[in-house]
């Protein structure tokens, strides 16, 4: 059985390695994998450790797809992170599972939070306690390829402001081959990307509706407004033929490859698009329609898990305070492109006049935040709704009704 011992020894060795031999307080921080976020956090940790020599922070990351489950499983087994990043929409589940603890009021006084952060942080407040604070918030904007605009005879410094201008620009910039196949999109359609947010919080509202009522617990888009919004979206592929779901696999890939003139995406994409060398691009506010502007804002917050106690709790408090400080927000803005969560750090003259951050910051002022119960499942409902129309040629009205029913069922199940 020497072999078995060897294995056990190996397993032991690995865990010792992983546990690190540092004598100082070590806390663990978890977030999901997104290259620029990981690098930014590494930078923050380095600065934090330099300022707090007695504390080391272990930074662990996972793919987004498994993130929530991994956190739930490890924290409920009494392991895992001391400080954890979570999507604002997960907070109810995390509190119900006692995965996270309220932020201590001594270190994070409520009046200060409410005075200094954007109001959307209240989505982290439950029963008079804050359960987390964001470093950055994100909103959507229209990215456009200046080179493609110029080639189509459009002014590369005048991006579309209204939905009519947007459609016109898409029609001018789309390119097709002899058999009518799109070889370069006017607008990159991607329901699995950010288009579902655009549809839900922007297009529905611009057509005179609201996506939900009752604190986002009742689906309200199964009406004329929802139908118009859906019709507009599917017409981009069916009628105007300016885009095609699945083209280049993902909208961001099409835009990055220079094969889409416009795409709607979030602040978090700036890092990736900054790497584009073959053309210049610009950012504009999401197009207005019927005189209405809207946007979708969201954020990941950092929270302290139930596991952190004693000296680890003290270290976690210090770390959380640091990653929500104006200094950290500035570093995050530069590295990731996500907007600072504190007004003072965000709404500087410099940021507002920045041609890239400006449109996102403006969007933040009129943005809505969907209170998801299960973001992945609700997104899937929107993806399927559009697919039914585009692939199965279902009547949009029926598809919309089916989606509303499915989403309501998801919300009701979660509320139980």
């Amino acid at each position, binding site marked *: 059985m020497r072999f078995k011992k060897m294995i056990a020894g190996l*397993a032991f060795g690995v865990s010792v390695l992983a546990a690190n031999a540092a004598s100082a307080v070590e806390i663990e921080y978890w977030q999901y994998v*997104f*290259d620029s976020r990981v690098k930014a956090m590494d930078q923050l940790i380095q600065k934090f450790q330099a300022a707090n020599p007695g504390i080391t922070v272990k930074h662990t990351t996972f793919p987004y*797809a498994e993130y929530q489950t991994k956190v739930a*499983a490890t924290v409920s087994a009494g392991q895992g992170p001391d400080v954890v990043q979570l999507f604002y929409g997960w907070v109810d589940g995390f509190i119900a599972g006692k995965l996270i603890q309220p932020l201590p009021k001594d270190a994070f006084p409520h009046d200060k939070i409410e005075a200094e952060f954007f109001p959307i942080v209240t989505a982290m407040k439950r029963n008079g306690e804050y359960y987390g604070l964001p470093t950055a918030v994100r909103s959507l904007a229209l990215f456009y390829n200046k080179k493609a605009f110029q080639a189509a005879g459009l002014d590369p410094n005048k991006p579309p402001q209204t939905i009519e201008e947007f459609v016109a620009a898409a029609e001018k910039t789309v390119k097709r081959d002899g058999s009518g196949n799109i070889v370069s999109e006017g607008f990159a359609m991607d329901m699995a990307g950010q288009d579902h947010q655009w549809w839900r919080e922007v297009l529905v509202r611009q057509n005179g509706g609201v996506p939900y009522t009752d604190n986002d617990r009742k689906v309200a888009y199964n009406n004329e407004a929802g139908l118009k919004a859906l019709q507009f979206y599917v017409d981009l592929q069916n009628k105007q033929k300016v885009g095609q779901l699945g083209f280049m696999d993902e909208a961001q890939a099409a835009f990055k490859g220079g094969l889409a003139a416009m795409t709607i995406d979030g602040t978090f994409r700036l890092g990736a698009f900054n790497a584009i060398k073959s053309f210049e691009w610009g950012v504009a506010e999401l197009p207005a329609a019927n005189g209405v502007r809207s946007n979708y804002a969201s954020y990941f917050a950092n929270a302290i898990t139930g596991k952190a106690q004693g000296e680890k709790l003290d270290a976690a408090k210090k770390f959380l305070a640091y990653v929500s400080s104006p200094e950290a927000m500035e570093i995050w803005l530069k590295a990731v492109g996500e907007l600072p969560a504190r007004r003072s750090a965000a709404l500087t003259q410099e940021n507002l006049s920045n041609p890239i951050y400006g449109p996102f910051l403006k969007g933040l002022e009129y943005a809505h935040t969907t209170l998801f119960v299960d973001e992945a499942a609700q997104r899937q409902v929107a993806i399927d709704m559009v697919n039914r129309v585009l692939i199965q040629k279902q009547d949009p009205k029926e598809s919309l009704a089916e989606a509303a029913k499915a989403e309501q069922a998801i919300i009701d199940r979660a509320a139980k």
Partner: protein
Amino acid sequence: MTTAPLSAHGARRGFPVRPGRIITWTLLFLGGLVMVTPILFMLSTSLKDASQVYDLRLIPEAPSLDNYVTVLSDGRFLRWFINSLIVAVCVTLSNVFFDSLVGYTLAKFNFRGRYLVFIAILSTLMIPTEMLVIPWYLMASNFGWIDTYWGIMFPGMMTAFGTFLMKQFFETVPDEFLEAARVDGLNEFTIWWRVAMPLVTPALSALAIFTFLGNWTAFFWPLIVTNSRDLYTLPVGLSSFAVEQAIQWEMIMTGASLATIPTLIVFLLLQRYIVRGVMLAGLKG
């Protein structure tokens, strides 16, 4: 395809060249080329730069190893490669040891309960791993095995398939050999290890090849049990890499090539043993 002459055995002896045979050969050859086309495209694209990816020619205009340099330079691939190697080698050694020990015991010892043990082990063949994944996950998180090598390896340390295979082979080992060793005063462990094991080396190599390949390409369980990127195995790492690369096909193809090339090299070196191993496992399994 119709006029090809009769049996294999006839064909292998004679060497008459007939039109039917040429057609057969050509069709088989073309089919074979179609089979490797995906692999060739993958390799070819990994040698192209981003601007040539849309150029669908098989032979790159200006082949370069830049993508490999980029992918390998951040060190993660090497790490995943080593992780996969550690996991696959350890699990293979464990299977070679335990499966053959159990197979031998069931084949060559007479004791009450033998049949029961055999049936019990064999019955686990009917239990799909997917069914065990949730309890394993629970077990791993309770014992702190999540995100460790041991966590990736423990479910596969022994398999019923390997045990059954080895039992079949040990049954063909003549008892006289073992008796002779017993008369010489060797203990039972030594008899198994020194006398019986060398007699079934082809079976052992078949078992080793299968176990290794199965663990080298395993995806489902490592995906579930690993957390940090440092512990990913190659397939899981590659999948996450592909997503992170935000659909840059030349990079994804480079990653996929890196996952494939080592097994191709090993195959080219050991082709004969691998094919024989597969045949043995198929016939006896």
